């Protein structure tokens, strides 16, 4: 009957394990690829393989049902490297992307866009007409088109403002409003954002259907681009109903970025049926959403600037649906030519111009 204690064991260490194992376990072939069980056999208590699994994000067993807690078996999120993050556990990596990339650079982007618009506005001034207005109106947007645009615009602005508060509010609103008020505000905005999102999806679809024909690319677009749209000197190149710049807003902004924002947004909203919502996917969706949303906001900011202050007469077009012949000729020459040629009717909606109270026109000049 011997005791389990080898004489060599230092005081306090009473287990057989680490001192009894000879030769060194690390001498075994395939030492590094041992499973935790294999390792425990040659080196009891050395759980390195298991810890490697843990930090590798391996999902273990948890009795909680997968349907209720799909990630309960995961101890530490797996290691990843998101664009712009270090190689670290996914949560931390996402935090790095959001906090060190999206937030500061996003803020910068929006700020720079705003600044650019301001500089343009004050240095260059709004784009005005060169010839006097004729007083003859051409219907540029039907009431349906306008309704579509404005509902979309309202939805977008709501989303953008609420999104901005979520992303940046704590830097500029929180110190000013205090936690409780800011909490309530953001809580409200966040819920508005979450419900407005799906509405925006709907309006965006309408937008695309409504405007896709007129945004179909054509040869002139290239020429328009080469001349920078005439924005920085020179005459404005002729364009059809929408110029290439507007087409960029349409294709790049509404369609491309819009779809990305929408897709990722719907996922973040957990509205996509038949998928499992895992943290890893949410992180990716969020990064995509935030990045695309920021770009889109920057782009639309430019659009909004041009649609309001930037170009005389543009806002009226969207507000009342009509433009002056001069405006059409100067900004959308080819479109104007087609109307003159009778290829496109000057009035497309059922509403006759005569039916409109004359005063409105006068006011809006």
């Amino acid at each position, binding site marked *: 009957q011997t005791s389990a204690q080898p004489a060599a064991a230092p005081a306090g260490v009473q287990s057989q394990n680490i001192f009894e194992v000879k030769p060194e376990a690390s001498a075994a072939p395939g030492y590094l690829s041992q*499973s935790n069980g294999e390792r*425990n056999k040659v080196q009891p208590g050395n*759980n*390195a393989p298991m810890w490697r699994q843990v930090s590798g994000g391996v999902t273990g067993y948890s009795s909680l049902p997968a349907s209720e807690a799909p990630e309960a078996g995961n101890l530490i999120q797996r290691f990843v490297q998101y664009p712009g993050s270090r190689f670290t556990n996914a949560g*931390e990596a996402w935090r790095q992307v959001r906090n060190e990339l999206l937030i500061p650079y996003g803020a910068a982007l929006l700020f720079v866009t705003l600044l650019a618009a301001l500089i343009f506005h004050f240095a260059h001034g709004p784009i005005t007409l060169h010839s006097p207005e004729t007083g003859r109106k051409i219907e540029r947007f039907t009431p349906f088109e306008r309704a579509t645009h404005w509902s979309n615009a309202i939805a977008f602005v709501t989303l953008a403002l609420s999104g901005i508060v979520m992303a940046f*509010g704590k830097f500029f609103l929180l110190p000013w409003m205090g936690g409780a008020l800011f*909490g309530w505000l953001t809580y409200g905005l966040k819920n508005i954002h979450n419900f407005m999102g799906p509405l925006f999806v709907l309006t965006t679809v309408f937008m695309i259907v409504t405007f896709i024909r007129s945004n179909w690319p054509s040869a002139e677009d290239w020429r328009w681009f080469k001349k920078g749209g005439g924005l920085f000197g020179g005459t404005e190149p002729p364009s059809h109903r929408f110029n290439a710049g507007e087409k960029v807003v349409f294709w790049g902004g509404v369609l491309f970025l819009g779809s990305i924002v929408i897709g990722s947004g719907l996922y973040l*909203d957990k509205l996509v049926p038949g998928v499992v919502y895992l943290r890893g996917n949410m992180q990716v969706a969020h990064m995509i959403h935030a990045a695309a949303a920021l770009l889109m906001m920057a782009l639309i900011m430019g659009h909004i600037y041009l649609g309001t202050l930037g170009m005389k007469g543009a806002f009226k077009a969207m507000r009342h649906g009509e433009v002056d012949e001069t405006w059409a000729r100067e900004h959308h020459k080819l479109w104007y030519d087609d109307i003159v040629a009778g290829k496109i009717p000057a009035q497309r909606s059922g509403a006759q111009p005569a039916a409109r109270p004359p005063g409105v026109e006068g006011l809006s000049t």
Partner: protein
Amino acid sequence: MARMKFVCDSERCIECNGCVTACKNENEVPWGVNRRRVVTLNDGVPGEKSISVACMHCSDAPCMAVCPVQCFYRTDEGVVLHDKDVCIGCGYCSYACPFGAPQFPSQGTFGMRGKMDKCTFCAGGPEANGSQAEFEKYGRNRLAEGKLPACAEMCSTKALIAGDGDVVADIFRTRVVQRGKGAEVWGWGTAYGSKVAGEAPTNGVKK
């Protein structure tokens, strides 16, 4: 100043879920919200180990860093708490948390998750200590009563130890020396920025 920490000794944990129901019981945590859970790796094969996990009250807490409304705060004892009145239920903390600690009362269609809930180290929340409001929102404030977390106090094998990081590390270290194995501490590297229990955080990402 004490710095509260958890250690789960995987050489001891037997996946009995005592810690889990202790938490449910003490804090009246509803169905679906698991402030604490137990995970088994290598289930059913030699080398199997179980670990009980909840919020680790990280030194440089990712949850805190990403919260859009900054509703997290840290107590003098290093406990990471949050204010449910301010929380907007965006779920960001749960994306960021390495351990899956933040929980939400509902599944979150339209992002409707409800207010985030997580382990409080049994330290309640911003309301007055021991108040009815604190209990209803965050559960018991045992620390204020001079007690340690319910989960650790009731752990069936004393695998889960909670308390001042130095004390906890010492208990654990003594145990490791006693048995001569099983020195790794689960999650300390990630949570406190150090691989070894009790060592100062070194590689924590500070921002």
